[in-house]
């Protein structure tokens, strides 16, 4: 019995071209991150500072949240508290319906994804337009994000062009405006620009996430390259911010540390194009911040896993992960893939999302790139130790483990078995490599040497002893 991740990855791996392209794309981002890290002599000090600031903040989170609320309220912002996804969705709906909002433009937020806000609002008659280009493409194609920062890189330009044509986005263009390659990324981006800029002027409300909340000033910071969060909040008069409570940092001194790490780690840029600080409503407008718990306070009380709260969702752990790069986002059963997604999924529901803990080779690369030093691979290892007690262990592997532990516990039996392994050399290849043998899956069965290591060692050892005596 394989995990759902393994099965989905197996299907994904059937198309070499797609896998190689995906792998190269994200390893390219990882390499850009490396260039950024190497260009700063203080890189490791920055990571350590970021980790310590987050450890400090999440272990003083109640105090900082109170300070944040106080300052934000003083700035004229309405602050709301949501214990779970339902309460969050209701609060947002109430604000929007109080203002008679029919259409809302929205910049990227994994929190709204986590709470299924879009479906919820659409069901209640409010049109939601994603304005990050990647997110908008996925929304039009009815697809989920495959990565938390670069959500649509798995979709190819031809499919995007077809989607735009199907939606009529090119209807107003003159034939001479359409280039020779009608799926040219520059042209498609221009088409999306015209479409989205129209949406900004039609919407009655703008929604953003928050990359950071600053307690000492009561403001939120949103980072984008496209400027879509700014467009969404500069034209409509109502601004609603959705913020997970763990996004808080103490002050401006901390902000310097995180601003410098976020884009460098996430996309390998020195900065995002826009780093926008919202400290209150725009003139004649209204600003709301919804602080969402939805399981985060529970994570804090988990002695082994509380440090996942340090995560700032840069996506660096996915880009470096050899399993993510070769199995892609949809192979995971939780909506956030990669090392951080494996952990967040288990914290959300350790039975429902346990299929992802196999998606790790324990190479620990994620630990080394994480800007806030979340011990991702150690945590995945810990989850694996619990798999059996959660009744989610693979029956075949469990049986093999039992058999091996019996054999290793009986040295004589072990020696005899090892001594006879070379006989396997005489088993015909077709039987050895049959599907029944899990060790011959995806490659040929290994060849056993004529002598075991122990035997060889014993034969060599006396010579060494003689040498020692001579010395």
């Amino acid at each position, binding site marked *: 019995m394989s995990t759902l991740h393994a099965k989905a990855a197996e299907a994904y791996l059937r198309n070499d071209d797609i896998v190689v392209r995906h792998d190269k794309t994200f390893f*390219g981002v990882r390499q850009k991150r490396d260039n950024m890290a190497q260009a700063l*002599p*203080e890189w490791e000090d920055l990571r350590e*500072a970021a980790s*310590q600031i987050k*450890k*400090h903040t999440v*272990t*003083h*989170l*109640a105090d900082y*949240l109170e300070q944040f*609320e106080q300052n934000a309220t003083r700035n*004229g912002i309405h602050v709301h*508290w949501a214990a779970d996804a339902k309460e969050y969705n209701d609060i947002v709906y109430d604000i929007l319906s109080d203002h008679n909002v029919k259409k809302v433009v929205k910049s990227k937020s994994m929190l709204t994804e986590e709470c299924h806000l879009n479906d919820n609002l659409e069901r209640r008659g409010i049109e939601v337009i994603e*304005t990050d*280009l990647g997110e908008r*493409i996925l929304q039009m194609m009815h697809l989920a994000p495959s990565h938390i920062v*670069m959500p*649509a*890189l798995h979709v*190819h330009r031809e499919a995007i062009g077809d989607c735009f044509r199907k939606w009529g986005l090119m209807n107003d263009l003159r034939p001479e405006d359409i280039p020779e390659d009608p799926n040219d*990324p*520059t042209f*498609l*981006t*221009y088409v*999306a*620009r015209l479409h989205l800029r129209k949406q*900004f002027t039609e919407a009655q409300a703008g929604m953003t996430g928050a990359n950071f909340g600053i307690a000492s*000033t009561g*403001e939120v910071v949103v980072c984008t*390259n*496209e*400027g879509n969060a*700014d*467009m969404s909040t*500069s*034209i409509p008069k109502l601004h609603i911010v959705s913020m997970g*409570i763990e996004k808080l940092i*103490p002050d*401006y*001194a901390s902000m*310097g*540390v995180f*601003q410098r790490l976020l884009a460098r780690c996430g996309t390998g840029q*020195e*900065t995002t*194009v*826009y*780093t*926008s*600080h*919202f400290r*209150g409503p725009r003139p004649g407008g209204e600003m709301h911040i919804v*602080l969402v*718990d939805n399981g985060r*306070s529970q994570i804090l*009380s988990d002695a082994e896993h*509380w440090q996942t709260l340090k995560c700032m969702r840069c996506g660096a752990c996915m880009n470096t992960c050899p399993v993510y790069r070769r199995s892609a986002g949809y192979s995971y059963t939780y909506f956030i893939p990669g090392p951080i997604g494996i952990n967040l999924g288990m914290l959300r529901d350790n039975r429902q999302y346990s299929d992802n803990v196999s998606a790790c080779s324990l190479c620990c690369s994620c630990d080394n790139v994480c800007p806030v030093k979340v011990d991702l691979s150690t945590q995945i290892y810990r989850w694996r130790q619990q798999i059996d007690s959660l009744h989610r262990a693979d029956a075949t592997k469990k049986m093999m483990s039992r058999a091996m532990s019996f054999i290793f516990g009986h040295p004589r039996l072990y020696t005899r078995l090892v001594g006879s392994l070379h006989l396997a050399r005489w088993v015909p290849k077709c039987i050895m490599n049959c599907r029944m043998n899990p060790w011959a899956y995806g490659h040929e069965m290994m060849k056993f040497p004529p002598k075991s290591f122990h035997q060889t060692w014993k034969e060599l050892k006396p010579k060494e002893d003689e040498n020692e005596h001579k010395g």
Partner: protein
Amino acid sequence: MNTKDKILGRLRQGVREQFDMPDLSTLHPITFPDPVAQFIQKATTTAGARLIELPTGADLNQAVHEAYPQAQIFASNLPGIDVQLNPDTVAEARELTAVDVGIVQGCIGVAENACIWVPQAMKEKAICFASENLVILLQRQVIVNNMHEAYARISGSEEYFRDYKFGTFISGPSKTADIESALVYGAQAARSLTIILT
């Protein structure tokens, strides 16, 4: 008990060990022998902006018009600049989506990443984003080495966030790589950025 108290209660109960805030003064962020040169280099390469070094006494209006000879609608609330629209007096922010060139004042430049601190100093901040092209005026003496220095300046000053509760760092024109990682300038906001260094 209301939701806020419930969340705060759970957070206070859940903490096992509290950690101290680190001493950030021991962090030695990168500095440059010539921050202005570094800023210009970053702005015109990775950030993808154009940069004009304006000699003292040169005509600002002329420089802006020369930078965008095709443009028809200019917008700004800065004194001495000829414009068709003013972000302080437009009836609706959406009018500013028709602007060809918006001109705003930057207050801090950051050498390490070509970020420019643009505090909101106009009624409609849409001018900074909705304009097809953006011009930011910046004095060379306000260029600092890194983001730590920039944030220290902002938090140490009374002038920002006083009249309007918004400020943004802008580094280059709006861009995206969401379609097959191909870098394209001009996603949703300004398609080009010209920095005029005085």
